[in-house]
């Protein structure tokens, strides 16, 4: 879409509404009587759907061709004496990520419809579960929409709380340990980021006279190199833990293993994207030279993560941990694409964020259904020959595995290929190493499929019932979207590309020219 499909009145604070609706929903759900469980679920789902509709409206009203850095922008004074304002707005990147969040929330609600039941290990109430998800949705919208660094930080931190409770109250046996581990890891990052944030404020006070957190003002202020590197590290480590990049990843497998599938999807599918999103939105434009100075380091971490994650996933005996490590490997790709500073690579990364969100949703949701049918066991060895007993489940599992190994015509392929291409343009060797990842991903994905879905039917599997209507309904959108984005990725790329180009322009880098058509750039 070259320009917006429908013109929305700019007087309405769209993004604020988008953020507030789920919040209201969560409060409403909390106020419902504890006994009315079904009602709570329905109300929650309704609110999430309203949010989704609003997002669609927003997406239609978004003008990809516009030159304005942010659209639907709002700005109100908040804490004037600290230069903090409530200012929100979206560029293409923010928009697609918000869309991802608002699409996934109803889906996971549907998939987690019966997560809180007498039989399960969780301790929380039904309404609590769904209220927390809605609260989390507000935070996700906020974190992607914020255009004030402080506001971003606030959402970045507050996001922890609902997630912490979602893991800790509704997870598996080790949930308390996993939730605390998650909290502490995130706080380490958050606090370092806080320090860097304040440092940035003080610097801005020196440079601009009056300290500010406004993103647009912070872009391109000149910081002395030493300080810039320090501040960069403060932000980067926070994002690297969130994403998570090697070696800051060890909270992820535990969280993924203990959390309910729904939580895991929101956690890995959306929340972790905040890390990579932050790299594009904040690290590159605000610390351009530091970003380039650290690029080799980040690229190294990313590549190690790609191979390492895949190899460890190959050796997992636990399904959920395998999912987690595969995600870690994919995050390696995303980070790689960002720090090679090519429009192909970065757009690929952003696209991969969406694709990976969907892939994760597919893996965890279908995996969750599978495990719920086997007493919640996530041990691969407990399964076998499922596809024969439950073909539809098997089919979706196959699909999930295929999107994990980035089969062409599925969304992840587009992202992965663009990232590799973007990398190849600058660092051939890195690209070669990273490409080995596609063999490993095939190995672990198909190993998982072979061990669980094929072969003779394992004890406890026969008589397993196939997916029901609700379960099918929750999975089908994921499947459809992955396919659509894989075949016509343009709908997303069109929106992402301008924002990416803008970012690269602020960093001051251009794509290398092809050997035959240009002279400068090219291979290193």
């Amino acid at each position, binding site marked *: 879409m070259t320009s917006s499909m429908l013109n929305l009145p700019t007087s309405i604070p769209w993004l604020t509404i988008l953020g507030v609706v789920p919040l209201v929903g969560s409060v409403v759900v909390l106020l419902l009587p504890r006994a009315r469980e079904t009602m709570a679920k329905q109300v929650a789902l309704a609110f999430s759907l309203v949010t989704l509709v609003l997002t669609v409206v927003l997406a239609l009203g978004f003008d990809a061709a516009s030159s304005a850095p942010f659209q639907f922008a709002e700005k109100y004074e908040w804490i004037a004496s600290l230069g903090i304002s409530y200012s929100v707005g979206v560029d293409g990147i923010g928009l697609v990520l918000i869309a991802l969040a608002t699409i996934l929330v109803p889906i996971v609600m549907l998939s987690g419809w019966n997560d809180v039941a007498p039989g399960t290990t969780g301790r929380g109430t039904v309404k609590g579960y769904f209220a927390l998800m809605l609260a989390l949705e507000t935070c996700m919208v906020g974190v992607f929409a914020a255009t004030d660094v402080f506001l971003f930080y606030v959402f970045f931190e507050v996001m922890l709380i609902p997630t912490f409770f979602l893991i800790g109250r509704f997870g598996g046996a080790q949930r308390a340990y996993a939730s605390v581990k998650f909290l502490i890891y995130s706080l380490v990052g958050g606090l370092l980021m806080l320090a860097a944030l304040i440092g940035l404020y003080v610097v801005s006070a020196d440079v601009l006279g009056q300290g500010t957190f406004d993103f647009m003002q912070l872009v391109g202020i000149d910081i002395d190199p030493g300080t810039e590197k320090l501040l960069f590290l403060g932000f980067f480590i926070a994002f690297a833990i969130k994403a998570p990049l090697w070696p800051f990843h060890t909270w992820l497998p535990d969280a993924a293993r203990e959390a309910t599938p729904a939580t895991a999807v929101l956690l890995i599918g959306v929340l972790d994207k905040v890390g990579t999103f932050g790299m594009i939105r904040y690290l590159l434009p605000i610390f351009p030279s530091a970003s380039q100075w650290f690029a080799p380091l980040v690229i190294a971490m990313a590549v190690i993560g790609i191979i390492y994650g895949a190899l460890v996933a190959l050796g997992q005996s636990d399904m959920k941990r395998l999912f987690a490590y595969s995600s870690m490997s994919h995050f390696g790709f995303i980070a790689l694409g960002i720090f090679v500073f090519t429009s192909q690579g970065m757009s690929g990364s952003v696209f991969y964020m969406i694709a990976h969100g969907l892939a994760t949703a597919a893996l965890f949701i279908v995996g969750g259904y599978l495990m719920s049918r086997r007493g919640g066991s996530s041990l691969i060895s407990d399964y076998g*020959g499922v596809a024969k007993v439950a073909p539809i489940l098997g089919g979706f599992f196959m699909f999930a595995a295929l999107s994990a190994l980035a089969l062409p015509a599925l969304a992840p392929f587009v992202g992965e290929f*663009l990232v590799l291409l973007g990398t190849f343009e600058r660092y051939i060797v890195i690209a070669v190493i990273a*490409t080995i990842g596609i063999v490993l991903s095939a190995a672990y994905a198909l190993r998982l499929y072979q061990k669980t879905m094929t072969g003779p039917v394992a004890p406890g599997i026969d008589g397993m019932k196939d997916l029901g209507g609700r379960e099918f309904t929750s999975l089908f959108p994921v499947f459809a979207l992955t396919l659509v984005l894989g*075949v016509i990725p343009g709908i997303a790329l069109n929106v992402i590309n301008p924002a990416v180009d803008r970012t690269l322009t602020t960093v001051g880098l251009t794509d290398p020219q092809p050997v035959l058509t240009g002279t400068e750039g090219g*291979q290193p």
Partner: protein
Amino acid sequence: MEVTTAAGGAFAYLWLLIGFPLAGAAILLFGGKRTNRWGHYVGTLAVVASAAYAVILLLALMGRSPEERTVVQHIADWIFINKFSASIALQLDQLSMVFVLLITIVGSLIHVYSIGYMKDDPDRRRFFGFLNLFVAAMLLLVLADNYLLLYAGWEGVGLASFLLIGFWQHKNSAAAAAKKAFVMNRIGDVGMSLGIMLIFVTFGSVTFSTVFDQAGEASDTTMTWIGLLLLLAACGKSAQFPLQAWLLDAMEGPTPVSALIHAATMVTAGVYLIVRSGPIFDQTIVASTVVVIIGTITMFLGAFIGSAKDEIKKALAGSTMSQIGYMILAAGLGPVGYVFAIFHLLTHGVFKANLFLGAGSVMHGMKNRENMRRYGALRAAMIVTWLSFMAATFAIMGIPPFSGFWSKDDIIHAAFEHNIIIGICAILAAGFTGFYMTRMLVMTFFGKARWEDDQHPHESPPVMTIPLIILGIGSIFTGIGLLFWGNIETWLEPVTGFETRELAIPAIVLEGITLLVVLVGAAVAIAMYRRSVAVEAPKGNVLVRAARNSMYDDAINDTIAVRPTYWLSRSLVWADRSVIDGIVGGSAAFVGGLSGRMRRLQSGFARSYALAMLGGAILVVVVMLLVRLP
């Protein structure tokens, strides 16, 4: 250089070629149980429709002047970021045309055959769904107008092959074979994707026409690298050395699959890739030489294996490897060989499909048992199968005037033109062909019956024999037809180029020698197996045992690739738990321990508190004074 014309007239619906089978696949796979009853008819119909349309297109194409026979249809933009752009666009030219015909026609026959072959399988619908999916992907592969889209089809056929090899997934062996096939193909795909990237970085585009137009301008090293990377991809898909190990396991799939995917079409995709990328390989002697070498090696490898295997399908698989070796070899020869590579590919597609379907028909009558040592004297029991099998056998052996004779001779011819040694190799391999095919024929249809007691061999139903008959006829006449009526050289020439050089020895002599060698091979086989065949395989010499174990390829792969990978994986799992996570947990434990020790200082005695305060006071004062000192 030929001009490309936009799709119009008969070509307006080019996408339907893919559309039919794709729709079929969608209906069958998403339709669920309700399509069980009629699903297989839909599937077959879809492919037949494509075939019919393909014929129409062929006629339309022939109606045009040779240089206007490249038609491009842009369907949609696909992946595009600034300078990079790969669109969903189809390109039909003489090369892709012949492939489309091969795929759709042989495909149709195999679909029909499968109706009978899979009659009793509860999942027949799914089978046809997968077959359709494969046809669609394969057509996409040959019709793509840029490398990335080709890659999509490339992976698509890989997926279909994965699904079909593992079709009887309740068998662990099948599932394992499927995974093996896909993963080994992925190794090839590494080459493919890197190749595509290098192409883009070099030419700024991945569209065939653009790339080939500038092919001459790029540096030799770059072209060599591109060539080698593409070759790696070809090796994966076409089971060429060193990535050949998956093909024999792939025989776990139902026989029609082996016929269509692992004999006629998919495994030849590598040849297509190399021929299609001819303009690139023409720029690099190194790469094309490597191609020739790889082809030659595989040619013998397959021949050995095919000569030693007792399972009929494995033997055939070996011969497939060997024959594709021929094609790759030819493709490596450059413009001299491209045409013949394709020519042999077509004839091979027909007679090898014939052979596999024949084998399938035999197994169908023999309770799906594969061991040829338990066959024998079946010609009486299944005449149609026998005759068609004979025809195909003569075809592959290259007995004139069977189709194989024309194509294979051309390759040997071209090989001699290129290099005397390669030529001799080609002739020797032909001798092997003679040996193993005769062996197969004799062990299966002649000699004494060595059946298990419960066997009651019988001919297959018409739905299976009719395709056999058609293919049998094909095995006889494809060669002549393509050569004299379809004069394939001039047809492909605009795409692949064509040239012939004068030869020291006259062609007729060469053909004589070849024929002689083949017959010798055949004679040896008859001598060995005519009289008696041991029911249990004799131990045999080193070479025989090696060949029986497919040259120990699994063992080799295990030692150099699989086991190291898993070892690394296991050790990283350990490291992740104990080192990385250990550091985290350790620091937490440290703080805890520190806390435990420090709270002991809180002794509860007021006087020790007072002491601490005094100490603190002294500390404070000392610090204040220290600051003063310097």
